[in-house]
């Protein structure tokens, strides 16, 4: 019974993974990847890890993939167009590596034996939480710092170029701007001048939408 479930979900996982690589539309990639995550969550349940399975669905298939799909929609990504194969010289290397993979899988199937079975409650939320908050408290706290750094980093990266607020207005025409106003990395008192050739260029440097000024 468990073997049948394994074959079913393993087949689903491999099929969806192949679709992730084969599809050219990023949105289809994302949907196939969600399929992989769901089938892996089912495999975790057959491995007696219900907590990890739930977290897999909530965090991976839920949060992370929503973020990815959101970015795909936001950037309005086109289809990846076909181009000539630029990796022709890598084909022999790929064949050799595939042979290595097949040998490895065959070796595992033949040689890895199961440890003796034992009854325990390792997959339950309680046992994971007990370990996480006692013996492995330090990695847990470090993870929280990592997440904080990720939040700050993502906000810094995704911020628009200039340091002006969103309701700033642009003066039309050619102009000279202090470097500290244009470049977020420059020192605040850096007054070297940056020359712009048009209103559009000034708008781009300042991160202001030029249509705002036309409306006024």
């Amino acid at each position, binding site marked *: 019974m*468990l*073997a049948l479930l394994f074959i079913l979900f393993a087949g689903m*996982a*491999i099929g969806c*993974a*192949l679709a*992730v*690589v084969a599809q050219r539309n990023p949105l289809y*990639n994302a949907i196939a*990847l969600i399929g*992989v995550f769901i089938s892996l969550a089912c*495999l*975790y349940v*057959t*491995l007696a890890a219900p*907590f*990890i399975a739930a*977290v897999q669905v909530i*965090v*991976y298939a839920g949060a*992370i993939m929503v*973020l*990815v799909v959101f*970015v*795909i929609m*936001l*950037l309005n*990504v086109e289809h*990846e167009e076909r*181009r000539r194969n630029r*990796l022709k010289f890598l084909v022999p290397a790929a064949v050799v590596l*595939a042979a290595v*993979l097949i040998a490895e*899988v065959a070796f*595992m*199937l*033949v040689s*890895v*034996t*199961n*440890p003796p079975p034992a009854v*325990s409650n*390792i*997959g339950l939320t309680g046992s*994971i939480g007990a*370990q*996480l908050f006692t013996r492995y408290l330090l*990695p*847990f706290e470090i*993870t929280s710092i*990592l*997440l904080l750094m*990720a*939040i700050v*980093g*993502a906000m*810094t*990266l*995704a911020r*628009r170029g200039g340091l002006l607020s969103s309701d700033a207005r642009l003066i039309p025409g050619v102009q000279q701007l202090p470097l500290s106003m244009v470049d977020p990395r420059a020192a605040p008192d850096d007054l070297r001048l940056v020359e712009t050739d048009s209103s559009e260029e000034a708008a781009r440097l300042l991160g202001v939408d030029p249509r705002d000024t036309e409306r006024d």
Partner: protein
Amino acid sequence: MEPQLSWYLALSAILFTIGVTGVIIKRNVIAMFMCIELMLNAVNLTFVAFASFFQDVIGQLFVFIVMTVAAAEAAVGLGIIIAIFRNRESLDVDEASILKL
């Protein structure tokens, strides 16, 4: 017949390889990013399989931490993707061959 530990390891190896292939052959940054997530998940499957067969909770704890790192990676990675798209109007990795934005 019960599923053997080796089955899970084989499945994990296959998924990881598919992920590596995707990272190599894809040109779209977002697609490459998703293939990296696939590789992380293949490794997670190994952790859970070992944790289950050796009756050790540490494997599952580690999966939990890997997921947190993946979430952080998703946030920062997508921020970088948006920054690249804003500067280059393209998600092709061949276009973004200079590290400077």
